[in-house]
């Protein structure tokens, strides 16, 4: 194991706060599981990745690239659905894999990622590069649960052509250390990328979430939306950046991070950056953190709910819009997992 720095901010701030990046102990994957595809029509083994594909760190990206590699090409004008499931069972305690998705002009893909497994699992090292040509559309739903002792790296990069659209909805519910590194380049005019995440931090979970979207094309649209609850001694760091580059006139971007604090020992760090060199844009950030509102709890209890039920309803209501944007088959499972974690109070 060695100490590495991950998820470094694109522009730095004060060192004494120790939030410019996160230092973690890194170990390379040992025994690798295999991914399970629902359909291999468009899947080929092997993949190449551009040099500008940056992961959470060079070490974590290299670990993913050292595993199995696939290229998924959706031909121009085609529509496809694909589920990729990774199960980390006792005999396959790690996973390492890298994926290159190419959606040719006008292609559409609905992609579901499912990551689950037992407490014996050690880690998952995932890297995916999404290249969307003009007018291509990508919808990703991701559910990650269980894996109580695992470190989970999910590193993704989106390159969007003209009028291409990518919509990502993730439920980051499991794992001991959850590291997400998502970067998007809105190169084409009118390209759009949304990154929505729900999370529940319990026990000593560490969530390290990094999102960075570059606006290059005109009239591009971005959304980064994180909603979650923190219980026990969980720690969450939410680094998000919207970067409006000169020339991206007419672009709009929003980023938000809303966290409910359920424990006095939970730690919540948020760094929502707005970087701008173009005047004709609208960039907004809103974040809030706090307890479950006493008035809301009181109201629900006056309608017959117990304190626990009232609290759960309020937390769920915060997360529900993102849960509802997941692929239908994942929604109930995600809600059940959120309820299970909140009912356990995470302490």
């Amino acid at each position, binding site marked *: 194991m060695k100490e590495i720095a991950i998820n470094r901010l694109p*522009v*730095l*701030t*004060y*060192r004494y*706060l120790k*939030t*410019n990046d996160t230092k973690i102990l890194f170990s390379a994957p040992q025994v690798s599981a295999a991914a399970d595809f629902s359909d291999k029509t468009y899947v080929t083994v092997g993949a190449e990745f551009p040099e500008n594909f940056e992961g959470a760190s060079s070490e974590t990206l290299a670990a993913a690239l050292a595993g199995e590699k696939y290229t998924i090409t959706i031909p121009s004008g085609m529509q496809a659905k694909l589920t990729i499931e990774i199960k980390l069972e006792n005999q396959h305690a790690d996973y390492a894999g890298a994926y290159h998705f190419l959606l040719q002009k006008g292609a559409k893909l609905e992609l579901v990622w499912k990551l689950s497994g037992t407490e014996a699992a050690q880690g998952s090292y995932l890297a995916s590069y999404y290249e969307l040509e003009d007018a291509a559309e990508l919808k990703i739903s991701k559910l990650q649960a269980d894996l109580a002792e695992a470190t989970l790296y999910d590193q993704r990069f989106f390159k969007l052509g003209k009028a291409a659209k990518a919509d990502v909805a993730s439920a980051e519910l499991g794992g001991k250390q959850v590291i997400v590194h998502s970067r998007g380049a809105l190169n084409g005019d009118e390209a759009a990328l949304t990154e929505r995440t729900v999370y529940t931090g319990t026990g000593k979970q560490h969530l390290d979430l990094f999102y960075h979207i570059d606006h290059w094309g005109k009239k591009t649209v971005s959304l980064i939306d994180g909603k979650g609850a923190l219980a026990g001694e969980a720690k969450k760091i939410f680094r998000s950046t919207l970067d*409006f580059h*000169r020339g991206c*006139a007419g672009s709009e971007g929003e980023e938000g991070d809303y*966290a409910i*604090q*359920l*424990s*006095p*020992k*939970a*730690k*919540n*760090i*948020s*760094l*929502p*950056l*707005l*970087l*701008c*060199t*173009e*005047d*004709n*844009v*609208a*960039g*907004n*950030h*809103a*974040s*809030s*953190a*706090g*307890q479950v509102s006493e008035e809301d709890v009181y109201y629900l209890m006056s309608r017959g709910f117990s304190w626990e039920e009232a609290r759960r309803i309020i937390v769920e209501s915060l997360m529900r819009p993102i849960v509802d944007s997941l692929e239908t088959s994942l929604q109930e499972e995600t809600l059940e997992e959120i309820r299970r974690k909140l009912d356990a109070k995470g302490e």
Partner: protein
Amino acid sequence: MTKHEEKKRSNIEDVNRSIYDIKDKVEYSFKADTGLTEEIIREISSQKEEPEWMLEKRLAALKIYDKLDVPPWMPDISDLDMSHIDTYVRPRTDMKGSWEELPENIRDTFDRLGIPEAEKTSLAGVGAQYDSEVVYHNVHEALAKQGVIYVDFETAVKQYEDLVRPVFGTLIPPSYHKFAALHYAAWSGGSFVYVPKGVEVSMPLQSYFRLNAPGAGQFEHTLIIVDEGASCHFIEGCSAPKYNVANLHAGAVELFVRKGANLRYSTIENWSKNMYNLNTKRSLVEEDGSMTWVSGSFGSHVSCLYPDTVLKGDRSKAEFTGITFAGKGQYLDTGSKIECLGKETTATVHSKSLSKGGGTAIYRGVVHIGPKAQGAKVSISCESLMLDNESRSDTIPDIIIENDNIDLGHEAKIGRIPDENIYYLMTRGLSEEDAKAMLVRGFAEPISKELPLEYAVEMNKLIDLEFEGSIG
């Protein structure tokens, strides 16, 4: 007016800098060698005939300065070479208690800046620093009778050692960062204010810092103690004429707000565009105390300024209201820090910035709610207005929460004047430039109304001139 004239843009650096840009003949009674060495520090201390403990602090700070690096997140200051900075320039006068006694050129400078006139009409006391030393200091007799102390910092070190020595350098220690260490090694001038228990200073006190010497540094130290239940408003102004060599300002402001006390600290920074303004300000607020910052940053080539409020006492409060206007050739990295340590503390941050002509305006903020700060409530609002697409505007907040009983809200917006708003005003008969100027004034208004009146007027003039003839 010709079409060419109609299209001519008024640049921010054209705006009313004439008052500030008048250079006096450079005269001094003593000037230390350029650079920062132990010999220079000893010489400054010797010139001031200060106590041994202060020299020891200076020398310890110098060692820290040599050890620390320039923080990697800072703007580029590679053109600032400490070996070429005049660390200490003593003007050709000692401190006076009346303006008439000052040498004519210095008196004229402060006359042009309107300081003596402001003293007559609306201030309870004035300190005026010229280069490295305070040349004028006066406080209303009634305040002095109430026990209010308002003196230059050199006098405070000698006459009020019992008040100064226990707290000097404790709130901003030399290890705070490299330029804090520089400050403690080279400090000269500044003000000391002590407001006794229960005394309300109804009219503001003002210190004005004028740097005339090219290539010089100014390192004034301001220390204010507002004792239990007392209140005070302190105004700090600063300016310098523009030179082709770098000037440096590395002051430090330490503010102690005791139980139930109130302090309002207003700053208008209007340094010239060759100035590196690396200033440090920090306030410690005790139980039920209240700290209000009002900050306007208009000048400097590079500015790094982040007033820090430590809400140590239960139910203590902080409010920060700031505006930054970055024009051509300016990199203004400003913001605020809030540290909630006590229970039921509250803080409001309201920051606005404008950037144009290739200027860079950065908002860099910190909110840290500690594990014991139960019941903390913090609200932050940052708005950035880009007036063209040559400029840069970034918002870099850092929010750290370590307990569950808190309420935090943070909002940030970045963009330009909405076309719909301009269109609406034009349908009501305004020209495009008038509409834009009105909207920018409206954007700045929540901040400008908090500024001392003469500075608010100055800021509105600046906005008007900015838009004059800009639409062709």
